[in-house]
């Protein structure tokens, strides 16, 4: 019986799918049965990286669904400053699966919190989106009225969207001790609020946490909007800091690993979720797509991710672009170390050549 590895598709083999492909042409995604057409209503949510996806979707003429667009007379600059259109509604960054689930529950009037409004130097802040307005709100009345309208816009969003692109960003979060309410930022970290260890507690999610929260979210969404599909991705952006007593790199790897594994489990379990490999696309290039700080993703990186996105979910699949011979040779020279994984890869390659 022939080894099953010998019948692998080219994209399953490192040499063909990665080594032989120019960095900016690697697409780690399988063609998806989910098709996005110009009529598909796409929404976005997630971490900072999701913002870049929002921008790209909007700029490529897709039907980027925004249910909280802001007054039409706002200038482009004001829209950016007040976070209109940054995401599909003005929820700001949603770093964790717990936050996304909580947003759904709040929008559906199934969850409330006793967290008081935050005060910052700039004004009154909504603890659930503390940086949504550059100068805060002018009054409690304005904030609460805006929050009410915002949650209505979120509800409408979930009811109307066809596709939600959600970028899982972090596993670390801060929660209110007594009821588990998740906050997007630690209080007292520059966006208002006051840190009180008796009230707030640090939490680092496990795979089980993320799977459970996302599953519940997907169930909610499915009930509310049966045609909706969630495209899950993992943000490639490393942690700025960790609350765990260890190196931030360790925490970054932990976080991304948990999120990636959880995403895998989720899409295996749920019919209304698919995975899109943006983390892999960015990190496959080493540091090529990162700015000097090692965190910020360059525009070229985002463009690559979006090319893959369109290739995966739309009809315009770009052709693979072979690497330049000189580059390929250089990489061959570097690949001299031997390990079990690499041995397996070499065997696969040899078998493929002998076919």
């Amino acid at each position, binding site marked *: 019986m022939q080894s099953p590895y010998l019948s692998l598709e080219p994209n399953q083999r490192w040499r063909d799918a990665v080594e032989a492909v120019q960095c900016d042409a690697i697409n780690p995604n399988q063609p998806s049965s989910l098709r996005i057409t110009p009529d598909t209503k796409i929404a976005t949510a997630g971490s900072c990286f999701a913002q870049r996806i929002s921008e790209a979707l909007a700029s490529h003429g897709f039907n980027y669904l925004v249910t909280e667009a802001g007054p039409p007379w706002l200038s482009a600059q004001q829209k950016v400053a007040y976070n209109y259109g940054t995401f599909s509604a003005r929820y700001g960054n949603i770093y964790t699966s717990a936050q996304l689930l909580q947003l759904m529950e709040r929008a559906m009037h199934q969850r409330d919190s006793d967290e008081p409004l935050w005060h910052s130097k700039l004004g009154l802040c909504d603890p659930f989106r503390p940086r949504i307005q550059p100068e805060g709100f002018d009054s409690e009345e304005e904030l609460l009225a*805006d929050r009410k309208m915002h949650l209505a816009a979120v509800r409408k969003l979930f009811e109307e969207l066809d596709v939600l692109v959600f970028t899982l960003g972090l596993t670390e979060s801060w929660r209110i001790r007594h009821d588990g309410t998740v906050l997007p930022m630690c209080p007292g970290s520059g966006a208002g609020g006051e840190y009180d260890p008796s009230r707030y507690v640090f939490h680092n999610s496990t795979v089980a946490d993320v799977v459970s929260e996302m599953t519940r979210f997907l169930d909610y969404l499915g009930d509310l909007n049966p045609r909706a599909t969630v495209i899950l991705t993992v943000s490639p952006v490393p942690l700025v800091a960790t609350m765990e007593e260890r190196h931030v790199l360790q925490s970054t790897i932990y976080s991304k690993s948990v999120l990636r594994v959880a995403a895998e489990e989720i899409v295996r379990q749920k019919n209304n979720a698919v995975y899109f490999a943006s983390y892999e696309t960015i990190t496959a290039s080493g540091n090529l797509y990162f700015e000097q700080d090692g965190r910020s993703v360059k525009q070229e990186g985002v463009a690559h991710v979006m090319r893959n996105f369109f290739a995966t979910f739309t009809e315009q699949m770009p052709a693979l672009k072979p690497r330049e011979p000189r580059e390929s040779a250089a990489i061959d020279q570097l690949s001299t170390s031997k390990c079990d994984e690499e041995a397996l890869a070499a065997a696969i390659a040899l078998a493929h050549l002998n076919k």
Partner: protein
Amino acid sequence: MSEELSEIGRAKPVFLIGDSHTQIFDGRIYQLADQAGIIAVSRDYIPGITAQSVSTPDGSVSSEIVRALKRFDLITESGVAKYTLLDKEEVLKAMAHGGAQTPPFCIFHIGEINVRQQLARSLGADFDIVLPPGLTPYKYPAAAEGRQISPFRVFSQIIETIFEGLFRGLAQFKRAGLTRLFLHSMPVPYSGDEVFEKQNGFALDIARRIKVSLAVNAFLARKCKEHGIGFIDIWGDIVDETGKLQPKFELDGFHLGADACLVTVKRFLDCVRNSQIHVTNGPRYGAARDRAEAPARGEAGPIPGEGYAVLNFAGLQALPIGDLIPIGEKRFTDIDWAYRPDGAETGAEWFAPSLTFVERLAALLFEENALLDSLAAMAGGRPVFYSARPFRPRAGEMALDDWARDAWPIGLMRAIAVIDAADGEEFRLSVGGWNAAEKKTTLSCPPGSLIVYDPRQVRLTIEDGSRGLAIDMHFGPAVPEMSLQVVWNGANCWPGDPFIFSLREAVAAPTPERPYLALLAVPYWEDQPAALWHQTVGTDAV
């Protein structure tokens, strides 16, 4: 001639320029209480005028407004306020026809079209605003379900953009010499929603129309203060306890009626009488206040000798009430400081005696008595002599606080120098708190006394029977990097007119040679060195 005819006097003109809301004022004349004077409103209706059209970014002023100002004979062909001219012919003409001999009172009623057709329309069906606390005492309906909230700060930015041309234009009029400008508040909307939609071609409920108007009025009030423009806000006078317009002020479903005009004139008079002298130097006070309050924010406070400390004489007992500082034996006994024009001669000699007075006053107080040194020791920083108002009090006449009693800024010292008292008597001042009923004590001040006080804490009035000559002075904060505009509050010429004349500009920072340098005026027009900002023409001297 079969009818008896008598003149009831010459009315003080008030000029009103603006949109259709000016029309109701046409031909209205108002009698001040106790026969103190007559006010006649002259109006010029400019159909369709908007805030943007008052002035364009390149500095072009609305030709319609220029036409109106010329029609009122307020400006020359070259756009200069006529009353500022020392030209004999112009002055005689002005005196003959009762035209402005002091800065004319000009009220603008502009912006309502912007409120209705731009701002209200911008909310459309989907948006609402939430007014910040303190902007109105009335509780208007909350935002309706389903409407997004436009952040009030963003909405305010739109208001600012729309009204930029109006304030740019008003500033230009001030530079031309029309210094006494007033802006009328936006009227209270009251038409029914269906009527509004029919008239304007779009729907907007009354609650949101009211909120937009209130937001604009709040903005206008703030900008007027910044620009030294009186803001005539009649909103609170014409609405009921729920914030709706009282029916008696309605006219045609849109404009306000004659009863509202009366309220406007009353508020205008309040505005004139409460003219705030520090407006001229508003930015300086802003800077001084910021410095004075800096320590409370954990920042560096005033630099001794440069900035200005927060003064609170009454609270700190820095100068216990009753203490008088002797300023010497020199008296002003021979000054005819309030010059009354006499005869046909006109020109610089009209105000020359007043300037002479200022110079002698400065020499007396600052050079011979080192007044600034004394004040600097008390205040913790060197102040700048800001203004002086000589007065000869007579029983029952003007109290020191008849005008400018509100909003005394941090860092302002006020002082009264008693120069002379009639028949060797003592000059008596009543010292009270801001509650008029609260009287602390009476000061008996012999000639040569100086009383320094914090006008935010203490109120001084002249007791009945006191007679003599005194000088009411203000010492402002020293803000060396900002120029000082000197306002000499002289004799009043008409109720509530504290600005008999002022010197356009002066050097802010005193020097060792001239510690009162602020008094030395820099001519406003280089080619007319003798010209003053205001003139003392045809006034009733105290």
